[in-house]
């Protein structure tokens, strides 16, 4: 088949548009000069600088813990939601639940963040928990929107799953709980892993929701970067961004591979 020039040009432009900013960022993270836009030779000194920056390292640690906790919670809750949505017979609240589960996918982050902030403030006033805002509130907030993504991923796997697998296990003498651990869980495991990785990267990336629900001493990595950039872009931020891109890309590739493996 003859290749169409139009398609080749369109593809090239598309890729350039998507990857030139990322490429230049990675390139300049190896820049010798302190000026971000002037190339002065190759160096890895900004990576060294980064490793000595206590503030950034602390934020990395906080972000990682938040991402780990909220991804794990989101997988548990999202899987439960997916089970109800796929397996339960229609009941009056099902359309509402479906809507509520997927709402965070389309809701503007600002609104999600603001509404959660209002919730946390009024909860504190009424029941005294969560006391103040910090890691706990960010974890709850991130779980809320990550749950939606996990629910979508697990739902599609559950819909594909042949229900007679579970019936076969029962028929062969396994009680329902046993069936879940012997058959259902292993079959949907790839979706759980993919959902967890997706949730982890989403939580790691989030700035807006975290800004609303964070408190003193709980600045996540995106928050630290954002505040640093406001004072002017320094090359160590480029180095940091490059590392983040690496981690996120790895996460997405692994999630994709796991999902594809049947």
């Amino acid at each position, binding site marked *: 088949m003859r290749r169409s020039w139009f398609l080749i040009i369109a593809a090239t432009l598309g890729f350039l548009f998507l990857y030139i900013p990322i490429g230049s960022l990675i390139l300049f993270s190896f820049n010798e000069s302190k000026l971000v836009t002037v190339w002065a030779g190759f160096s890895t000194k900004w990576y060294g600088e980064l490793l000595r920056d206590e503030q950034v390292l602390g934020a990395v640690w906080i972000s990682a813990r938040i991402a780990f906790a909220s991804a794990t919670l989101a997988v548990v809750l999202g899987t439960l939601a997916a089970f109800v949505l796929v397996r339960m017979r229609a009941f009056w609240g099902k359309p509402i639940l479906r809507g509520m589960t997927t709402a965070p996918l389309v809701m503007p982050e600002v609104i999600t963040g603001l509404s959660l902030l209002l919730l946390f403030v009024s909860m504190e006033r009424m029941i005294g928990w969560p006391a103040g805002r910090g890691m706990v509130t960010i974890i709850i907030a991130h779980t809320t929107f990550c749950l939606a993504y996990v629910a979508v991923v697990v739902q599609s796997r559950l819909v594909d799953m*042949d229900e007679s697998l579970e*019936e076969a296990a029962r028929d*062969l003498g396994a009680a329902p709980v046993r069936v879940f651990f*012997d058959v259902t869980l292993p079959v949907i495991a790839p979706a759980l892993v993919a959902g967890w990785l997706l949730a982890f990267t989403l939580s790691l990336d989030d700035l807006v929701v975290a800004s609303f629900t964070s408190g003193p001493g709980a600045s996540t990595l995106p928050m630290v970067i954002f505040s640093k950039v406001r004072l002017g872009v320094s090359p160590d931020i480029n180095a940091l961004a490059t590392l983040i891109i690496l981690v996120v890309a790895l996460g997405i590739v692994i999630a994709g591979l796991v999902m594809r493996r049947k």
Partner: protein
Amino acid sequence: MVGTATKPTAGELKPWREARTPPFIRIEGISKHFGDFIAVDDVSLDIWQGEIFCLLGGSGCGKSTLLRMLAGFEAPSAGKVSIDGQDMAGVPPEARPTNMMFQSYALFPHMSVEKNVAYGLLRGGMGKAEAMEKVAAMLKLVQLEGFAARKPHQLSGGQRQRVALARSLVKRPKLLLLDEPLGALDKKLREETQFELMNIQDQLGVTFIVVTHDQEEAMTLATRIGVMDAGRIVQVGEPRAIYERPGSRFVADFIGTVNLFEGKVDVAAPDAMRITTAEGPILTEPVVGLRAGQQVAVAVRPEKMRLSREQGAAANVLSGTVSDYAYMGDMTIYKLALDNGRSVKVSVSNIDDASEAFTWDERLFISFPAKAGVVLSA
């Protein structure tokens, strides 16, 4: 061995013919409603030990629902099932003495063949060593010895089907339920597997209930067939009886090919019976209980009719022209248009070479004896 075995009597081989032994499975007035829809409607059946009982019917006739009620996946809306004298009401699938072979095979994709087959034994509390021994024997029976370590997705359709069979048989259930067991196989493999299935059933003596929409499959496998339509059992009988003496127009038409002649009883004497149809009078053997004037149909199978160029001396002779024919190898099926436009199918066995075959537009006589026609009032 020769001469020492006494030939079993018909009653031992076909216990449903005599009421000497009690049935193994009793289904009494069972129904299943899904909202307004009635999937199974007041079905009663007795099935004896060692039978291969085929539930035959089109899609949506309720045969699968009936099977799922026996397995315990659906609770009956009304009625009662007992297996080997034990009432099954409220007994969950995992506690029933039944195993099922699913239409999709439902092999666990993350387990090897060996683990799939061993699953039921291990869940039943058997020790690992003993279970593995039984699995090996079972895999040998279904000729899959070399495949123990494979995953289901590394097997062909026929191999998967045999794993599913091995898995459902290894626990030696009192009753094996098979849902369209050969549906996913191609024709050649299907025929081979049918005989294999019968062999295995013979060796293990397990009672089989098979759900199928394929009447050929039912004919070759079954000791008895239950024909289902719209949630009801319309006829139960041995394959030969179902084919030769269908009880209704539906059964006659569903099983095999048939020519149905609608008409009225004209003469109903103890020694002769004549039915007036749009195609002329048809003589049949006398049927008890039919009166003159009653609306009936005469069913005649295509292979019970003869074609000839000269008018013979049979009890019934019709004439028509060949409108179409299909050469099938072992036989040829002719479609003839009668004078009133009605079409009749006649099959001719190709015993001699087909050089003497009839061809399009030839005018022929169709003759059949009085005993060929089955009079149906239902």
